[in-house]
């Protein structure tokens, strides 16, 4: 059970979620998304990182990129449940922008204490940021980095960096004399090279980044503690994005199953279509409840945050896979085409499913917490 009856999701949070929904439906309907990102079907395409910079700027002006930044650093200081509400709507719109990366960086910076203050102020001033903490094997264990720092200069490379070409700042983990430290680096600093990955997901961009003697500011020399503290929030917001996207997949497929007729009935008349769609809804609702429950734990009952966040991301990863599969299958042939919008979400969900650990990765850790580690 979550600590607060309403998960701490008060009036302000409800208003924010509602205005986010309106913002995206008014400004960025799915046909706009398709026209923006689905320009090159070639399987060998390089990601071209198409996004609506002006819309992102509006979002920044609304204060949404600095929602999680504490008021003491010039931000809005909203609780995680409220942020999850916004991200759910962002996921529903599959809006390409560096919000998730910026939130991720924010939660890690908050966990850095005083050292994070200056960087948080930059985010509050509208800078976008992202984490560069993963090795080339995509090991989600946060202690793995292939960057090192010597004499205040970063060398090496970081992989699977999200929204790298949309961001202004990087929060980089690197081996340092102290062990593992975090550094704040501008993406246009001399020595930083961004190599775009050719990815499946058309709504995001991803890159590996090499550092060649890059001057960097140390944020903390105890990166491990900060990253471990922040990971639950990072998993939860990604899970919220998945839930929103899955709801789009469900609603879109339900509409199709109501409009399209075969054998003299709408498709949804047949239980082989109806029941799987119900199962998708049930799975979404489980994930959604787990997301807000876990967010409430992060806000109010930190001792449960890790366990509840693992549950939220484990469940959401399953939802991503299940909702995606059904959305294509129930559309039939048209669902298998480039022209139909469902593939955009299918691909975004595949990306989200694996990012920061898939269901099995989280459940293995949960087993250790709930059942005890095996000697």
């Amino acid at each position, binding site marked *: *059970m*979550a*600590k*607060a*009856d*309403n*998960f701490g*999701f008060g009036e302000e*949070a*409800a208003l924010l*979620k509602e205005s986010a929904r309106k913002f995206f439906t008014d400004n960025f309907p799915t046909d706009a998304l398709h026209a923006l990102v689905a320009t090159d079907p070639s399987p060998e395409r390089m990601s071209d990182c198409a996004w609506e910079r002006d819309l992102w700027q509006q979002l920044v002006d609304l204060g949404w990129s600095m929602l999680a930044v504490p008021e003491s650093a010039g931000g809005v200081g909203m609780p995680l449940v409220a942020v999850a*509400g916004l991200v759910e709507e962002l996921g529903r719109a599959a809006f390409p922008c560096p919000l998730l990366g910026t939130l991720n960086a924010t939660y890690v910076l908050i966990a850095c204490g005083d050292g994070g203050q200056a960087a948080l102020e930059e985010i509050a001033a509208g800078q976008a940021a992202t984490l560069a903490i993963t090795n080339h094997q995509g090991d989600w264990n946060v202690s793995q980095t292939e960057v090192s720092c010597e004499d205040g200069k970063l060398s090496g490379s970081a992989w699977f960096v999200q929204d790298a070409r949309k961001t202004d700042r990087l929060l980089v983990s690197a081996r340092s004399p102290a062990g593992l430290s975090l550094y704040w680096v501008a993406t246009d600093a001399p020595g930083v090279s961004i190599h775009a990955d050719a990815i499946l997901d058309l709504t995001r961009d991803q890159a590996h980044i090499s550092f060649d003697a890059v001057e960097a500011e140390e944020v903390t020399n105890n990166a491990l503690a900060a990253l471990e503290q922040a990971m639950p929030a990072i998993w939860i917001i990604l899970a919220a994005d998945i839930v929103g996207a899955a*709801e789009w997949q*469900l609603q879109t497929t*339900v509409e199709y*199953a*109501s409009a399209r007729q075969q054998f003299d*009935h*709408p498709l*949804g*008349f*047949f*239980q082989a*279509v*109806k*029941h799987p*769609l*119900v*199962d998708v*809804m*049930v799975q979404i*609702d*489980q*994930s*959604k*409840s*787990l997301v*807000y*429950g876990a967010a409430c734990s992060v806000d109010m009952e930190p001792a449960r945050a890790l366990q*509840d966040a693992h*549950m939220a991301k*484990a*469940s959401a990863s399953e939802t991503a896979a299940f909702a995606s599969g059904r959305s294509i299958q129930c559309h039939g042939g048209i669902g298998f085409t480039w022209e139909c919008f469902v593939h955009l979400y299918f691909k975004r969900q595949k990306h989200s499913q694996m990012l920061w650990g898939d269901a*099995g990765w989280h*459940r*293995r850790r*949960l*087993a250790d917490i*709930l*059942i*005890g580690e*095996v*000697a």
Partner: protein
Amino acid sequence: MSDDARKDTQEQADFRQYCRGWLADNRPPEPTVRLPLSPLEIMTTEQLCYLQDWQQSAYDAGLVGCDYPQEVGGGGCKDCQRVANEEMLRARTPFFPNVIGLGMAAPTVFYHGQEELKQNLLPRLFSGEDIWCQGFSEPGAGSDLANVQTFAERKGDKWVINGHKVWTSLAHFAEWMILLLRTDKSHKYDGLSYFVVPIRAALGDGVTVRPLIKMTGETGFNEVIFDNLEVDDSYRLDELGKGWQVAMTTLLHERGAGELQTPRAGGMKSKATHTTNTANLIELARNSVRDGEPASADPLLRDRIVQQVIREQGLALNQQRARVPALLDHPMRVQLQNKLLMTEISQDTAALALEIEGASASLYLGDDNAPVGGQWPMAYMNSYGMTIAAGTSEVQRNILGERVLGLAKSK
């Protein structure tokens, strides 16, 4: 302070304190008979009397029917039944025997009965003195409930009832039955009417109750034959031809999605035995052996246990989210999933328990070596009663698809 107490209104907080105090001083004695898994498997009068005594004392103390008005024998409180339920679960009391009365008959009579009928029937229902049963299903009317053929023919201000009900839980102990029947053969839905009927008084004189044996070997449900039973028109709920609408009130509450909270107690001994939850599942895994190691060390079993924990927590949080309108896309969407989820999750938990037990899952209640007294195989079998009764899982999926998602109605 517990999680529950944190969110109480003043009235609820005072009531909670009262319940806690009363329960501390009035714990029912240990039963001298084996209690069944749920009220639906009560087989002997010894079991019944023990549970009835408990319900009576809980009612006298004000823990049953809290939110109903005082005129009908209730407590006249606002949202206090939930508090009483939480405290009774916490105190691990026995459960109440009159489940169908409390969960289905009471709200139905309350919303659709005449004032006098309510005042006559509800106090003895709440106290457990009158056990109730539900006469809906028939040999030809299961999932297709509106196909009910039991017929009432008008005779002055009386009705004469003939027909055949099946799977009637608790009918062997029941004073009263809520009865869905037909008063007009020319309209499927609008030909249905709804009565309350004193069946015990008419045993051998218009009513026959015959027990049916369940796959577990337990009894608990029955078939009930009506042979020219005469009942008074004052036992009719709502208007003639409105039986289907009244039945919807019953079903909504039966599936845990109704307006009024059902008084619920329970949990007695549940730590040690037979409650299909994952805490007990983990306990079982620790105490079972696979390949010479505790089963709780087996990576595949661990993963499947964790999957069940996640579903169980998802369900609990669903119930909490159902009360936060800002987090709902459709007002009934989450509530209507309750029955489906609850029964399917516990079925899968019980199935997993049998796999954890391995060879020992072959041992049933009569075997001294059966883990946890053979309760898991029994719980597993009974779980199918739950996914069938009160609208099968398939029917639940139809309801969700049609009412929530708006998909075309299936045949």
